[in-house]
């Protein structure tokens, strides 16, 4: 089987269904995706791992044309507010890169796909979001 790695360490792909994981402040509950030394909200210094929900809502979007990586082409960047209030930036996948295709009213859910392969044949697994409805296309 092809070896796989997540594109960032807050994507967990080897513990059940792929999901995001954060660092939750032991004092105030603030959640961070990246490793932290202390909490920006309350200053506490200890954190515990926390599994994040797979669904959320789109807060904002843009469609990037200039400077988009050649192998990606124009893409939809979205800020997603997950069901627990954590914010994450990602691509909206499975929709055409057009403003009319972005619907703030439809919930989105996490999906994963292979974003690249290194010289050893290891796949980098990325996450994105797609519309959380039965009719939404599943491919990235």
């Amino acid at each position: 089987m092809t070896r796989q790695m997540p594109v960032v360490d807050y994507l967990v792909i080897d513990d059940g269904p792929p999901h995001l994981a954060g660092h939750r402040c032991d004092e105030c509950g603030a959640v961070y995706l990246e490793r932290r030394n202390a909490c920006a909200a309350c200053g506490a210094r200890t954190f515990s791992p926390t599994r994040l929900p797979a669904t959320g809502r789109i807060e904002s979007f843009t469609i990037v044309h200039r400077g988009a990586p050649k192998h990606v082409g124009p893409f939809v960047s979205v800020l997603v507010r997950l069901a627990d209030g954590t914010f994450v930036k990602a691509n909206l996948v499975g929709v055409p890169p057009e403003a009319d295709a972005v619907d703030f009213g439809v919930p989105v859910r996490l999906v994963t796909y292979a974003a690249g392969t290194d010289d050893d044949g290891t796949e980098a697994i990325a996450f994105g979001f797609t519309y959380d409805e039965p009719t939404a296309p599943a491919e990235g």
Partner: protein
Amino acid sequence: MSDDIWIIGTAMTPIRRHLDRDVLDLAVEASLGALDDAGVTMRDMQVMAVGSQFEPFTFGQDVQKQIGQTGIPLYNVHNACATGATAVRSVLMEIRAGEADMGLALGVEKMTGSSPPYRMTPPKAGKVFEPEGRDGHVLATEGVLGTGQMFGVFAQTGTDYARRHGGVGFEQFAKVAEKNHAHSTLNQLAQYQRPYSLDEIMNAEMLAYPNTLPMSCPTGDGAAAVVLVSDAKLRSLDPDVRRRAVKISAAVMTTDPYDPSGFAHPDVNTLTRNAADRAYEQAGIGPEDLDLVELHDCFATAELVHYDNLRLCAPGGAGEWIDRRAPWRDGELPVNVSGGLISKGHPIGATGVANLYEVATHLRGEAGDRQIEGARVGLTHVIGLGSVCVVHILERAAS
């Protein structure tokens, strides 16, 4: 005598792709211009601050070696797009603390001839994935996990506003650029000086929806400087200097208070609102008292949301405000009559001083073709993404 701080001299270079001039040429032109404008010399300066985002090490000392080495304290400042405004604040705080009674603040940037600073590195061929950085990324995440490019970030700020408030779409954002390009036709210091039609703006190259190329600030070179004095010092100066002096009625700097969204996407709204509210309180005035505003329109989407953040329009009403041309130079409250960053240009370190130059020049009644008649009070605003915000309120000397 009061704690007031005054601008007695200011100058800026034209903003251009100055291919035949180096960064010191620009820095010197603005510095000496501001000193000459005030009728003072480097020997009168007791403190100096030099803002540049990209010049390394002790660049300010290099400037001193061109305009006068007098042994005074010097701050080299960089603070993203608020770099120039932070240099001004450094001088202002020295004067307010009683360490100096007169000082020079300079902002300068040379951006042409170098790589665009925000371009992300594409993934290299011939690589074995290894996690790097605090997020453990194994490849470049631009275009994979959304965008961090400036025009994309500010585009999302715009679509966030559009989601929360009615009457805002691509056209409203484009109208901001139409206005600023129209304004800059009167400003010989501006990098662009030609009008763009709304159609031309909306059909131009899309950088990141909804920001097209003419809705985005260009890369350019320029410098601006101000000479600041204490109230006590001002009283000892020549009547002509006092008559042209411009009072800094409010000087506020803010950074982001904690918000969970800010880690995924910069919030340029909250710190601007906090800065504006404190500035109005310091100056003892409200937005209704303003005669002109120079705000941080790095992209058209940014300008629109700041109408609301700076309390210039009704809450949620930024779309309607631009639709009825309120921020045009002949409207209710002229915004970015210089052309703004979109059209005047945005040499990063210079920007937070250049906006003081613009407003002070209007308050002195010396803005020529683009003068806002009878201007008495003006506001300047800059944002450095990351973020930092500086708001100044300026008032004409009582005559």
